C-alpha cells in the first residue's frame, strides 16, 4: 500500500514534468501566432505547421492526463472537469487563429477569433441595442407568454380524456413541422416591430410546454396520489404538494428546450422585416455589406444570450428539483 502510493507519486512527478512541457509548447504556439505578421505559413512553408500539430498533440496529452483525475471526489476533480473542456475550446480557438492568420484567409471567408473579439468590444453599444430589441422585448415577452399559456392549457387538458386524445396528436404534428415558417405571416399581421416576433415565439414555445407539462402532470405516482387521498387533501393541495413537484422536471425540460427555440424564432422572424435594430436585422444587413467580423460578433452575442439563459434555467432547476435522481446522483 505504502509502496503503491510512492509509485504513483513518482509517476506523477514524471507526468508533471511532461505536462509543463506541454503547457510550454501551447504557449509557444500562442506567442508565435500573436507576434508574427499574417501569412507566416505561406512565407515559411510547412515546418511551422508541424509546430501547430505539436501544440495540438500537447493539448491532447494534457487533456488526457487531466481526465484521469476527474473521477475522484476531491477539489482537483472539480477543477479538472472544468479545465478539460475549456482546454479543448482553447485548443480549437488556437487552431482557428493559427490557420486564419497563417494562411492569411480573407476576412470575408472567416475572421480570426481575435478579430471577432475586437469587433465585439468595439461595437458593444450597437450590440446592446440589438440585444434589447431582440432578447429583452421579443424573446422574453414571447417566451413568458408562450410557456405560461402552454402550462395553463395543460392544466385544462389533463382533466379531460377527450381533449387529451384530440390535442396530443396535434401537438406531435406541430413538433414535426417547421413552425418558423409562420414568421412571414406574423410579420404581416402584427407589423415590423417586436410584437410580431413575440407572436412567433409564443407559437413556437406553446406546444413543447403543453406536451411536456401534460406528461409531467400525468406522471404522478399512484401511491402518492393514494396517500394524498388518505390525508383528505383538497384539490389545490393535491396540485401544489403532489402534482406540481412531480411535473417540475418535465416542465424544466420544456423551459430549456424553449429557451433556444425562442431565440431562434425571434432572430429568424427578423429576417422577414424589422425596424433597423435587432440581431436578425444586424446579421442580414452586415452579411450584405460583407462585414463578417460584425456578423460573427452578433452571433457571439446570440450565443452568449442563449447559453446564459440555458445555464440560468439549469441552475434554477438544480435548486428546485434537488430531490430528482438525475441531480442527486451527480453524474
Amino acid at each position, binding site marked *: 500500500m505504502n509502496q503503491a502510493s510512492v509509485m504513483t507519486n513518482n509517476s506523477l512527478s514524471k507526468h508533471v514534468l511532461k505536462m509543463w512541457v506541454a503547457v510550454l509548447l501551447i504557449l509557444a504556439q500562442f506567442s508565435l501566432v500573436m507576434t508574427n505578421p499574417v501569412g507566416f505559413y505561406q512565407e515559411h512553408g510547412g515546418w511551422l505547421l508541424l509546430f501547430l500539430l505539436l501544440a495540438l498533440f500537447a493539448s491532447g496529452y494534457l487533456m488526457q492526463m487531466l481526465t484521469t483525475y476527474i473521477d475522484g471526489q476531491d477539489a482537483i476533480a472539480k477543477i479538472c472537469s472544468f479545465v478539460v473542456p475549456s482546454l479543448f475550446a482553447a485548443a480549437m480557438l488556437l487552431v482557428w487563429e493559427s490557420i486564419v492568420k497563417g494562411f492569411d484567409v480573407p476576412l470575408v471567408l472567416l475572421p480570426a477569433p481575435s478579430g471577432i473579439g475586437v469587433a465585439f468590444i468595439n461595437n458593444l453599444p450597437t450590440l446592446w441595442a440589438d440585444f434589447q430589441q431582440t432578447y429583452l422585448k421579443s424573446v422574453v415577452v414571447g417566451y413568458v407568454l408562450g410557456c405560461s399559456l402552454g402550462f395553463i392549457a395543460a392544466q385544462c387538458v389533463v382533466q379531460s380524456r377527450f*381533449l387529451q386524445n384530440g390535442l396530443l396528436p396535434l401537438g406531435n404534428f406541430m413538433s414535426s413541422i417547421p413552425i418558423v415558417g409562420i414568421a412571414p405571416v406574423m410579420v404581416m399581421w402584427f407589423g415590423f416591430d417586436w410584437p410580431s416576433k413575440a407572436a412567433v415565439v409564443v407559437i413556437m414555445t406553446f406546444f413543447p410546454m403543453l406536451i411536456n407539462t401534460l406528461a409531467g402532470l400525468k406522471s404522478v405516482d399512484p401511491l402518492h396520489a393514494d396517500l394524498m387521498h388518505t390525508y383528505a387533501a383538497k384539490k389545490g393541495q393535491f396540485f401544489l404538494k403532489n402534482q406540481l413537484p412531480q411535473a417540475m422536471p418535465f416542465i424544466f425540460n420544456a423551459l430549456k428546450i424553449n429557451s433556444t427555440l425562442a431565440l431562434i424564432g425571434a432572430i*429568424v422572424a427578423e429576417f422577414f422585416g424589422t425596424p433597423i435594430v435587432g440581431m436578425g436585422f444586424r446579421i442580414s444587413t452586415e452579411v450584405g455589406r460583407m462585414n463578417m467580423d460584425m456578423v460573427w460578433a452578433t*452571433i457571439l452575442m446570440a450565443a452568449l444570450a442563449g447559453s446564459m439563459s440555458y445555464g440560468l434555467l439549469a441552475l434554477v432547476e438544480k435548486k428546485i428539483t434537488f430531490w430528482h435522481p438525475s441531480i442527486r446522483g451527480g453524474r
Partner: protein
Amino acid sequence: MHKRLMDKPWFAVICMIGAVLVVWYIAALLLNGNQLINTLERKKVAWSYSHIVTEAYGIKRPPLPVPHQIAAELYKTVFDTKVTSKRSLLYHTQITLNSTLLGFTLGVFLGILIAVGIVHNRTLEASLMPWVIASQTIPILAIAPIIVVVLGAINLTGLVPKSLISMYLSFFPVTIGMVKGLRAADKLHSELLMTYNASARQVFWKLRWFAAQPYLFASLKIAIAAALVGAIVAELPTGAQGGLGSRLLSGSYYGQTVQIWSALVMSALLGCLLVWLVTLMESWVLKRRGLTV
C-alpha cells in the same frame, strides 16, 4: 353508446380538426372582412354585411387565406404545373427535400461517430460533451446566412451549404440519444461478454449497437424534423435559387399570402411524411428483434 364515442381517439382528433377549421373560417372572416370594409369605405362604396361575408373568402391577397383557397393553390401548383417548372411547388419541395436528406444523413453519421467516441474515450467525453450541449444553446439558425454566403464565396453553392445547416441541427439529438443508448446495454449481458473476454469492438457490435437501436430511432425522429427546419431556414437568404424557404420569402415580399400558406402546408406535409417514414423503419427494424414500438 354516446359515452363510448367520446372515448374514441379518432373521434377526438376529428372534433379537434373540425374545431380548428371552424375557428380558421371565423378568424378569416373577421380579418379579411375588416380589410374589405376598410378598402370599400376608402373608395366610398356602399356595402352590406351579407355582401362582405360572401366576398371575404374570395379575396386575391387576403390577410388570412381560408383552407379551400390554400387547397386550390396547392392543387394548381402541384398537379396543374409541370414538375420541372419553377412555378411547381413539387419542384421547390424536391429542392428542400434533397438538402434535408443529405444534411440528415451527414448529421446522423456525425452524431453516431461522436457518440461512439464519447462512449469509448473518457477524455473525449470530458472535453467534448459539454460543448455538444452548449452548441445547442446557440441559436445556430442565425448562422445560416453566413454559412451560405461564406461557402458561396468559395464557389460552393446550392445543396451543400444548406445541408451543412441541416447536419448541424440534426447531429445533436443523435449524439445525445446514442450516448444514452450505447450505455443502456443490460448489465448482465455486458458482464457476460466480459467473462468471454470480448474486445471493445466485439462488445460494440454484439451488444451496444443493438441496445442503442431504440434510442437511435427516437433521436432520428427529432433529427429529421430539425433537418427540415434547417433546410427551410437556410433557403431564406439564398434568394431565388428555389426551395420552400425561398417560396416563403418571395411570398412575403410580394404579399402573396396564399403562396406563403401553401408553402407552409407543404412543409408540414413533408415533415409529417419524413417522420412517418422513420417511424415505419423503426417498427420494421424493432419488430424483427421482437421489440414492440
